[in-house]
């Protein structure tokens, strides 16, 4: 399963009310490191199928969530579990860094 897109209006339904943990990638088209992160997140989305959903939120189009979670640098990925933030990774630091983050919410 590839990553899914999420917008401000869907955030509550798709992220906060999700039955399984959701990793949200805050990104934008003009962001170089976000392009590096994309294939890695796609891979992780396959590897953690059924245990985790990975969603992408475009910060230019969804400023509500961007402001709410005080994202001021991209890529920022935030892991949500049971409607709460359980961890975040600022910047792209490779697959292992994402896995460390995912382990905070997924066994």
């Amino acid at each position, binding site marked *: 399963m590839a990553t899914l897109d999420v917008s401000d209006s869907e955030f509550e339904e798709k992220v906060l009310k999700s039955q399984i943990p959701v990793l949200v990638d805050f990104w*934008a088209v*003009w*962001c*170089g*490191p976000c*392009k*590096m992160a994309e294939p890695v997140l796609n891979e992780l989305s396959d590897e953690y199928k059924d245990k985790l959903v990975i969603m992408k939120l475009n*910060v*230019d189009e969804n400023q509500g969530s*961007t402001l709410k979670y*005080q*994202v*001021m*640098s*991209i890529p*920022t990925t935030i892991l949500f579990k049971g409607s709460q933030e359980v961890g975040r990774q*600022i*910047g*792209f*630091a*490779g*697959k*292992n*860094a994402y896995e460390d983050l995912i382990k905070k919410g997924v066994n």
Partner: protein
Amino acid sequence: MTDKDIFTIKPKEGEAWDVVIIGSGPAALTAAIYTTRGAASTLILGGESWGGQLMLTTTVDNFPGFPDGIQGPDLMNLMRKQAERFGAEFVQKNVETADLGKKPFELIADGKKYLSRTVIISTGASDKWLAIPGEKELVGRGVSTCAPCDAPFFKNKKVAVIGGGDSALTEALVLTKYATEVFIIHRRDQFRASAAMQQKVLDNKNIKILWNTEVTEIVGKDKVEKILIKSNKENTSGEMVLDGVFVAIGHVPESRVFKGHIELDEKGYIKVNDHTKTNIEGVFVAGEVHDQHYKQAITTAGFGCMAGMDVLRYLDKSVPSW
């Protein structure tokens, strides 16, 4: 990719590569284009965060061949494709240890061992930080080293750029497109940046400059709230309320992994002998991990070409001239 472009066969499990290139910026990828075309089996240990400093830029206007400019990340993707076209294997993992005391050389990346007859070190340089209280804690929460990445988050806000070289001035100019007030805080009384860049900054009414000033602390709970500054000429200090701090005080060579094996200078740059050689026979160097003078995408690509050719000569392979 077609087979006719590939001149080399990959080593079998447990066998040595002809060359392992560490890094994945312009130096590394150019070296790989040359070594693969010279029929040397080539592995690039490119790092998790691949592509080097150009991945953190927007338009690159000084790379020949792109009259309308090219996006830094696009340029790196093209270079990677070109290296892979000729059979370079790209592993996106960081090198953890490098045992250059035995032959073949042994490199460990993500727990896996790779053997190689020669090595090209092209690990480049990374951003230098101020190392002051509050800085590390607030990275991504108002503290940044990448204006092209983060400037849009500072729309209608007040920001400071720390530094006085080309990269600091470029960051300040990028920020003026979004922030209402941009300050450049520089510890000297003049810039090191090029004349063209200085003129652009001095002509820009939205940029204010604080000379002879140092930042001593960044303060904020969940995000940057203010900075503490002091003058290094007069005995005065003060604070500035602002939203963002962009650190652009230069780079440090990424040579830690090789310390103890490879000769470094006092700043950590790898010492070069005879164009591209290090103190260990069979280990070559290219790019910003040794060059502290030019630091351009095109010069680092040139260094990569030189190292690639020297590796081929060392391996006794002929260098193709086409």
